[in-house]
């Protein structure tokens, strides 16, 4: 992930005297190449080993398909799988958007008073600790399957964003808060100018966790819904292919789910870096 590396020359170094000495840049190049190439090489080697084992031992595709077959299935079944990918991806994004809006709003309400936070936090905890797979059947009775899946994905993404943001809002520098009081700043300006920026790194951390969990929530709910004969997301395709013993398609769908998860993670990591790299320790190299 070269885009995440502060040493990447594509990202302009911050102005000022504390810029890292440039003499290190040239020597960093071979190291960077190794950093990217080595994991890629190992990954490809693992795939090759898988392929070789399947072919040499003649393992039938209904037990373990070779990577080449999974690739071919991905291409062949793309018309079916792409539709399901869009359904799952869209559910995840939608759930995440609602979770972000809801958790930000609630975190801001919590920030108004310790008592509000104390009173309502247990609800958030209950929502978090109850496994979503256990709630899904109930939701599927109450709601149509699309909405039920959305609610499940929302439920799991909501809490990490909420608790991180609430922590962030409460962690603003006390001296800065006093400074705002000295200048008699109204409370809303304190929130806008001080608490929200202070909460940003925490919020982004919550978002990274919530993003991955939203996908998991969507998949779990789809499986619950899929076994009831509803839905058309990627998890439904896995269940469906399982009934037909279409193992290669199961692997193909699984591959797409993994790629979606990676995509979500990388997108948020990049967002985090873009927003924090100038000021927050988490996004900076130590300059050694």
């Amino acid at each position, binding site marked *: 992930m070269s885009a995440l590396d502060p040493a990447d020359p594509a990202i302009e170094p911050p102005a000022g005297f504390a810029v890292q000495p440039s003499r290190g840049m040239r020597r960093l190049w071979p190291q960077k190449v190794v950093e990217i190439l080595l994991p890629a090489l190992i990954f490809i080697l693992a795939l090759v080993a898988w392929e070789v084992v399947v072919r040499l031992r003649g393992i039938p595709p209904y037990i373990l398909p070779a990577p080449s077959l999974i690739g071919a299935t991905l291409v062949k079944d793309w018309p079916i799988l792409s539709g399901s990918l869009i359904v799952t991806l869209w559910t995840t994004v939608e759930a995440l958007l609602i979770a972000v809006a809801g958790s930000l709003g609630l975190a801001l309400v919590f920030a108004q008073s310790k008592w509000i936070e104390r009173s309502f936090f247990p609800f958030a905890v209950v929502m978090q600790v109850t496994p979503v797979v256990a709630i899904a059947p109930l939701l599927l009775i109450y709601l149509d399957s699309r909405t039920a899946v959305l609610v499940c994905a929302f439920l799991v993404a909501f809490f990490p964003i909420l608790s991180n943001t609430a922590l962030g809002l409460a962690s603003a520098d006390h001296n800065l808060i006093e400074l705002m009081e000295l200048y008699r700043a109204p409370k809303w300006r304190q929130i806008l*100018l001080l608490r929200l920026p202070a909460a*940003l790194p925490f919020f982004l951390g919550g978002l990274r966790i919530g993003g991955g969990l939203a996908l998991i929530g969507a998949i779990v709910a789809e499986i619950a819904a899929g076994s009831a004969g509803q839905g058309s997301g990627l998890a439904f395709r896995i269940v469906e292919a399982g009934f037909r013993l279409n193992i290669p398609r199961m692997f193909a769908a699984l591959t797409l789910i993994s790629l979606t998860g990676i995509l979500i993670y990388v997108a948020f990591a990049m967002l985090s870096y873009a927003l924090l790299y100038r000021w927050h320790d988490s996004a900076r190299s130590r300059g050694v």
Partner: protein
Amino acid sequence: MTTVLERSPTGDASDVGRRLVSLRSVSKTFPNGTVALSRLDLDVRAGEFLSLIGPSGCGKSTALRMLAGLTEPSSGEIAWHGTRPEIGFVFQEPTLMPWASVFNNVWLPLRLRGVGKVEARTRIDEALAMVGLSAFAKSYPRELSGGMKMRVSIARALVLRPPLLLMDEPFAALDEITRFKLNNDLIRLAAELGTTVVFVTHSVYESVYLSTRIVVMAARPGRAVAEIGVDAPLERTEDFRSTPVYTETCRRASRALHEAMTDEDQL
């Protein structure tokens, strides 16, 4: 309780020596029972550089925070002679917003007074020039040294040109070379702007070098035990450190501080 005794413009160069604010028999007891201040009487006069010095727990920071309105006295009163002027405050830490550039950090007080970024530019540039950081307006606090961060903090406190500047051990965490340099800059700025300064410190030498008047405080309970005038004009340079007035005042202040701390031991 805060009262306004007489109405007159504050911070005028014409009324140097006039009382700006008075603490009258001010006490502060914290909810946990600690008596931070006991019946403190203190006048701050326009144009002076007043240092509060004393051991930990003598309530010097509490007194400063009361002047800033950040904490209320449990009893006694804070009386402003005239309307309360604009106040600048410098904390022990630079207390900058890490997500904002130096420029935006200094903008904050103006911003809270409703001054837009474009309008504020000249005043921010001036404030940064005063502390010698014009070239760093676009830098982020992270990219600055400890001394430079403190300069930004001072620029922020001065950007509204407050008649009264309160400083709570601002240089305690800095190395001695940086501290001496900032001491000189502070004296120059206070004189240039005609700012009244109340300065809290642990260091006898720093207080004598900077101040026109020193109030020595003792702990448990926090109170004022001695007052020492520094008989020298505020145009001071490093040479001042080798004058008899400086040496003699340091000796007196040290003795007063020593007595304040001996008192405490006997309690």
